[in-house]
């Protein structure tokens, strides 16, 4: 793996996404519809912070599921997988896709956050900003680290769109519970220290997933 080729591949993906807007459009639509639906569903209620935190990550999860798998699926569908195999080593591909997916998830969380803050302006108030920021950053990394390799697996299978969340969810449960718990703490105004335990879990999770995926990626990527 060389940094320059990884970076070139990231640039290619970003460029290609800006051209086709395939993932981006799907993401925007899902986010907006999901938030609108939830807003409508909660209309009459005063949701608790844990419900809000839960629904926040549910939206992120499902939206991510509709977009992240494109990274590999689109290569596979258009037959460019072989081209990429020829010009890049597996680890280059893995890290490039990991970076792209992290960036995508991170922008997603920002979009959802902005939407939530405008829509639930009285109940979704982030009291401990530091906790929230760290949660969102680690959460995006965690999401991307687990779902990148799953996307690579799913790209080789037949029923990609439905299979992707099915394979990802069991693996993401730990992550989801942890980020939900940390987000609740941020909303409730617990001090930053209160969420340190959650962050440790998140860090461990990210390391384990990235390391495992890195080692296994070759088996998935090569025929």
């Amino acid at each position: 793996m060389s940094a320059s080729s990884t970076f070139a591949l990231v640039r290619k993906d970003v460029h290609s996404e800006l051209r086709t807007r395939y993932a981006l459009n799907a993401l925007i639509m899902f986010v907006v519809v999901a938030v609108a639906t939830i807003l409508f569903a909660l209309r009459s209620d005063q949701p608790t912070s844990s419900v809000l935190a839960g629904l926040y990550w549910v939206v992120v999860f499902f939206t991510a599921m509709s977009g992240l798998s494109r990274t590999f699926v689109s290569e596979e569908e258009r037959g460019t997988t072989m081209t990429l195999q020829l010009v890049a080593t597996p680890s280059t591909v893995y890290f490039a896709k990991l970076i792209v997916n992290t960036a995508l998830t991170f922008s997603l969380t920002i979009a959802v956050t902005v939407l939530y803050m405008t829509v639930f302006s009285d109940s979704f108030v982030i009291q401990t900003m530091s906790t929230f920021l760290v949660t969102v950053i680690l959460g995006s990394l965690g999401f991307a680290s687990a779902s990148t390799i799953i996307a690579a697996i799913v790209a080789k299978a037949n029923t990609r769109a439905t299979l992707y969340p099915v394979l990802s969810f069991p693996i993401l449960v730990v992550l989801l519970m942890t980020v939900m718990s940390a987000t609740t703490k941020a909303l409730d105004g617990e001090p930053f220290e209160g969420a340190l335990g959650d962050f440790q879990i998140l860090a461990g999770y990210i390391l384990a997933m990235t390391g495992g995926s890195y080692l296994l990626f070759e088996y998935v990527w090569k025929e």
Partner: protein
Amino acid sequence: MKAVKFGSVILITFVLISGLAIPISSNPQGWLEFPNIPGLEEKARNILYHVPIAWTTVVAFLVGTFYGFRYLKTKNIDDDIKSVSAAGLGFMFCLLATITGAIWAKFNWGSFWNWDPRETSIFVLLLIYGAYFALRSALETEEKRASLSAVYSIIAGITVPFFIFVMPRIMSGLHPGAKGDPDGSGPVVQLKMSPNMLVIFLLGLVGFTLFFIWLFNLRVRLARLEYQRSVQHP
């Protein structure tokens, strides 16, 4: 294998019978009475079935992942056969553990399901197995099916320690040993059981493990035969 087969049958039968037959008294006398564990009472008998089954589920999962790992190293299709056989059994035991656990929970904690950390983890394990088989059925080429499902089971395996060691600590739960449990841990964990119960419990563990080994052996042989038949008549 004969020894395993008979051993498991004898042990499980013994555990079943003795677990149900031995009376529980608040003041146990000798080997033929169980102590009364406060909060469990008669329901404590299920420890002897539920826990060994849950244990076997985990063993099956580990065995399946192990052979998946071996497949990636050796590319020997026989390892995939072993891996998928173990996963199939694991799924079955997982269902059994869920059912015995859920029934127990209904009588002990009032409802079938409470999202206690251990319940959550067994549910996730069920989902992992479901996803594993869904993935396998979506892959047509044998080699791809073997290696991708092996990778998936390893990736899923990475999360298992989180469920076992981490989750019970961040979530409050009903199982003994969870966060906020006043005792810290319960009868099994601290081996608070009376010696006779402990012996039967351990025999149950051994019995169910042997049972798994026997079934595993059977299934692998069956799967090999099917494989060979499809080689001859594709």
